[in-house]
């Protein structure tokens, strides 16, 4: 049986005011994940250490540029679990997930749901 959900990322990020992606890449042209066309939904779960909200931006596209953008905020308190379900407006090969906010650590996991 083929897996319906696959872990794409597990890691910890030091968040600051400068917007970086989950791999700490500040260049906005670089993707966080490639070969993502199979995924219908991204499930992003984790814990952030600070009380201040985190702003996130999800972009989808390919080598010709970004085609869609989704923004939001993670509002949970310090050391509380959160879950964000990002439904893809369109299937794209590249995804970039950027985070910015007050200084704190973000430990999170992203699972891609196929189908």
């Amino acid at each position: 049986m083929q897996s319906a959900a696959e872990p794409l990322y597990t890691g910890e990020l030091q968040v600051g005011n400068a917007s970086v992606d989950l791999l700490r890449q500040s260049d906005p042209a670089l993707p966080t994940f490639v070969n993502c066309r199979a995924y219908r939904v991204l499930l992003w779960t984790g814990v952030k250490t600070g009380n201040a909200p985190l702003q996130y931006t999800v972009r989808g596209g390919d080598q010709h540029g970004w085609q869609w953008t989704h923004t939001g905020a993670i509002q949970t308190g310090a050391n509380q679990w959160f879950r964000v379900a990002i439904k893809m407006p369109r299937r794209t090969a590249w995804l970039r997930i950027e985070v910015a906010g007050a200084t704190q650590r973000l430990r999170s996991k992203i699972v891609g749901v196929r189908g």
Partner: protein
Amino acid sequence: MQEPIRITRREMLKCILAAPLSAVLTGLPAPRAHAQLDEFSPPEWEWVLLWEGRATIDNAWRDIKGNNANPFATVSRTTNYSQLLWTGYKMGGVNLEYRVLARSVDFSGMPLASGWFPIGQGVITTPPQRWFRLMINEGHWDEYRIELRSASPQIVHSRLLARWDYLPK
């Protein structure tokens, strides 16, 4: 003179009911049609049994296995399941409080952080010795813990199923 055929009312009813049905079924390629249906319409999902058993539930929060140590998961490795179905049978007449918790783990199986993400909570108010059912729609978490509490001790039987979605070919 011919002897009359004696037949009971029940046998007569059997003949009336069975005769037209057998006429319809005769010549119907039932097995072949069934095989074709399987080939072209595979199941879209199936329910997988994760756990089945019972526990005595008291005033402390315990999971459905009876474990009152909050850091321990009731079920693990559940990332692939899109839904959970918890059916149970409570022996006592007292209401049963429940809460469903979930968390994610890293590649080694360690939770990303302490604590749990609350998915849902409620009260089961069915009378004693009756079945209840709860659908957990927030799927694809790595681990779940289903906790129960009862004002007076009672035995609760549980069966936890998980939905595995087949991917389209």
